[in-house]
């Protein structure tokens, strides 16, 4: 199967091509450069809490939301961030098509006040498409801090469209934006955008082609015009003429066929635009240059920046991206976050476990008092409730600490710096520099990481990123790693700070990154051959995170969401495991049969049958691997009060665990098939069973090999 654009193209981006609307509703599109705070504006307008992050390409899935203002109902569509509408990437195509052919009544272009010149490029392009544009200059608070002063009234006059200054994070200017956009959408406010006038030779041709287009449209009787055509006719004919001049042939063909031009029209258009490929480049260059000249003019006239002020971002970057400190600082940051998580999670974990155990005792007493049958108590309490208790007490504390910390890093703008620092490694692996960003998302959830691979334009590199995302331990696996590392690496006698577990987990993450690079390299040299595609990465300004919002998104959106998913999978899994452990066939329970079957192979790779079974049963969600494992151990062994990590250690050691088992359990957790949700996402994103299967086979093979090797080494030196 070839890796074609179609096979990797995602449909989700085009899902919202047409938005359903009622008669009295207005559709408003939100466009803008990546990382201008578009999502923040979206949230401020709709009152929704879509997650935002300080890196370009954060919004890969489109969102739409409603807001009512002055009794006017509006549907707001958040388009992917784009630098231009000349459609170089999937996102740009979506944004362009929605603005061109979607049924938006008005467009808000969100611009970054600290980088207005670049943002105006997109605005000028949008103004060529529609008159109903509002420029929202966002992040005005940040601009103020940087001593940048913007003359909004002046810009308004120079552009001929309404301009609103905003600081969406603080809600500044949002009411004014609502007022303005509603009036523009319902036609109360009409504007005449002052678009760019190009060089004479372009204008001459544009006028000629525009005349032909207008003639063709007016010649058609109204019955001939279908709906798709109508929206195309609404498209500014000047814009069409420009694209016929400078667009690639594919775009021009599709535009012309959509418009149903007759032969005469097509011929006369061709006569006026018989440019060679090189000429088209020149036209496109000139058009871009003219637009930017205009943007420069506006910046020079209406933006006053204090150039003498020391640039804070560059001072920070002196360290964060420095040759000497860049990578060590990154590892230190990762280690620091993990250390806080591990240390901080220990106590609440114990508390929660003790709490749930006391509840279990009460429930058990209650079951006895009503003379409930043993099997019912077994399924509900020993199976379902106990697994749930484990999932919550082992998972919740690390997640509730890790997610906010990670979100803060994301909001500050650190992630693109990581991508920048590590780019040379990814380049050597023939992979895309932005793969690093998708891996960062994988820390939260691999399924989310795989969706975020959409920010990689090249299909080949996107596939590599998808296939290797699983090597980043997601938060479903972090608690397992943390629990095992804590149990086996904290000496009982030592009190206080113990950094061994932190080093172990950090080491595992580094191993994961190393394997990602190796596998990426391997794929690039075999089934996904090719040279690295182009790389342009914008490093956003550092921003002070909004701690309140960070807590909200990371606790409610992420932690609770992930925990809830774990709970609904863990509950039935716990019950089923108990049933399997208590139904006997011959002398052995079903679980023991499975374990006996898996054990010989599991022993080869330094695990045991129970562990392997737990990983297999844990396919729906990695979160339940450890609880299932404990269930299985407990259901067949003696009952132990599991109210602390120490008791957990006793359970494991009673079942024959050694340092090798612990190490391989962690390695196998890092290197095995992706969870069910992730596999489904891969299937959806790649549209191919083959690639999905490969995404499971590659890590599993590596995991088995690595564990096999460590086992041999350990046994050779007599430690296994």
């Amino acid at each position, binding site marked *: 199967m070839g890796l074609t654009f179609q096979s990797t193209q995602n449909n989700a981006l085009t899902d919202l091509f047409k938005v359903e609307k009622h008669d009295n509703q207005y559709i408003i599109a939100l466009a803008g450069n990546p990382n201008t705070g578009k999502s923040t504006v979206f949230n401020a307008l709709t009152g929704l809490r879509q997650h935002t992050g300080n890196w370009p390409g954060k919004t890969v899935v489109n969102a739409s939301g409603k807001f009512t203002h002055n009794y006017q109902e509006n549907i707001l569509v958040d388009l992917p961030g*784009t*630098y*231009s509408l*000349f*459609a*170089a*990437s999937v996102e740009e195509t979506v944004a362009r098509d929605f603005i061109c052919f979607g049924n938006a009544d008005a467009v808000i272009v969100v611009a970054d006040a*600290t*980088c*207005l*010149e*670049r943002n105006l*490029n997109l605005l000028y392009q949008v103004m060529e498409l529609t008159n109903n544009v509002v420029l929202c200059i966002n992040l005005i608070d940040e601009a103020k801090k*940087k*001593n940048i002063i913007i003359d909004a009234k002046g810009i308004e006059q120079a552009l001929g469209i309404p301009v609103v200054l905003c600081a969406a994070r603080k809600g500044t200017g949002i009411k004014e934006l609502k007022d303005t956009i509603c009036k523009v959408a319902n036609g109360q406010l009409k504007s005449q955008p002052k678009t760019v006038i190009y060089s004479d030779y372009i204008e001459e041709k544009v006028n000629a082609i525009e005349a032909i287009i207008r003639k063709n449209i007016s010649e058609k009787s109204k019955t001939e015009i279908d709906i798709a055509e109508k929206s195309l006719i609404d498209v500014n004919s000047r814009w069409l003429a420009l694209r016929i001049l400078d667009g690639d042939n594919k775009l021009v063909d599709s535009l012309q066929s959509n418009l149903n031009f007759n032969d005469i029209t097509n011929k006369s258009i061709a006569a006026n635009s018989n440019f060679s490929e090189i000429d088209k*480049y020149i036209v*496109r*260059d000139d058009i*871009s*240059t003219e637009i*930017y*000249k205009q*943007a420069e003019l506006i*910046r020079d006239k209406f*933006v006053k*920046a*204090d*150039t*003498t*002020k*020391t*640039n804070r*971002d*560059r*001072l920070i*970057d*002196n360290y964060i*991206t*420095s*040759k000497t400190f*860049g*990578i060590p600082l990154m590892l230190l940051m990762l280690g620091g976050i993990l250390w806080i998580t591990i240390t901080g999670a220990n106590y609440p974990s114990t508390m929660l476990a003790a709490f749930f155990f006391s509840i279990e005792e009460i429930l058990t007493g209650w079951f006895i008092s009503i003379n409930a049958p043993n099997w019912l108590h077994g399924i509900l309490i020993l199976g379902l409730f106990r697994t749930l208790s484990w999932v919550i007490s082992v998972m919740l504390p690390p997640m509730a600490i890790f997610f906010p910390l990670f979100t803060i890093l994301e909001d500050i703008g650190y992630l693109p710096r990581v991508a*920048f*620092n590590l*780019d*040379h490694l990814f*380049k050597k692996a023939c992979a895309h*520099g932005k793969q690093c960003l998708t891996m960062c998302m994988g820390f939260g959830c691999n399924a989310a990481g795989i969706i975020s691979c959409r920010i990689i*334009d090249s299909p080949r590199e996107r596939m590599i990123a998808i296939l290797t995302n699983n090597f980043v331990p997601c938060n479903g696996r972090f608690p397992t790693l943390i629990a095992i590392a804590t149990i086996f690496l904290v000496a009982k006698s030592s009190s206080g700070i113990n950094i061994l577990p932190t080093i172990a987990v950090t080491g595992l993450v580094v191993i994961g990154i190393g394997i990602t690079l190796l596998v990426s390299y391997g794929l690039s040299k075999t089934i996904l051959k090719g040279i*690295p595609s*182009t*790389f*342009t*990465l*914008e*490093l*956003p*300004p550092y921003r002070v995170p909004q701690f309140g919002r960070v807590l909200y998104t990371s606790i409610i959106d992420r932690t609770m969401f992930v925990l809830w998913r774990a709970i609904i999978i863990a509950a039935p899994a716990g019950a089923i495991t108990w049933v399997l452990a208590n139904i006997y066939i011959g002398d052995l329970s079903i679980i023991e049969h499975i374990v006996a079957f898996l054990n010989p192979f599991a022993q080869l790779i330094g695990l045991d049958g129970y562990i392997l079974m737990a990983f297999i049963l844990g396919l729906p969600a990695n979160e339940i691997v450890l609880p299932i494992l404990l269930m299985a151990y407990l259901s067949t062994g003696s009952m132990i009060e599991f109210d602390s990590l120490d008791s957990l250690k006793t359970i494991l050691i009673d079942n024959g665990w050694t340092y090798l088992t612990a190490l391989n359990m962690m390695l196998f957790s890092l290197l095995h098939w992706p969870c069910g949700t992730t596999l489904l996402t891969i299937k959806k994103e790649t549209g191919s069973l083959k690639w999905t299967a490969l995404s499971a086979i590659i890590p599993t093979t590596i995991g088995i090999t690595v564990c096999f090797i460590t086992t041999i080494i350990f046994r050779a030196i007599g430690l296994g």
Partner: protein
Amino acid sequence: MSKLAHVSVGNYVTVKNLSSTGMLRERMLALGLTKGAKIEVIRKGPSGDPTIYNIRGAMIALREEEAALVAVNVIGGCTEYGVNIPIHPEQCLNRSI
């Protein structure tokens, strides 16, 4: 005339032309690498690649391969950090190149 990839850190250049094609060319134009645009070479990554450029007030990282496709004129250098955006190379012209 030289290639953007060969300009050392601290220098200012203006864009002469692009030899990139297809999607990369579109992306470069969209980012503002148009004829006459002033670019500042800000810093190199931990292994010397990629390099961060100040392009129209935004910090953009380009790999060496991409930067080699941009022909530029070096107009001056300013090796000290702390020059704020937007670029005002005039301030630095009297310093060492």
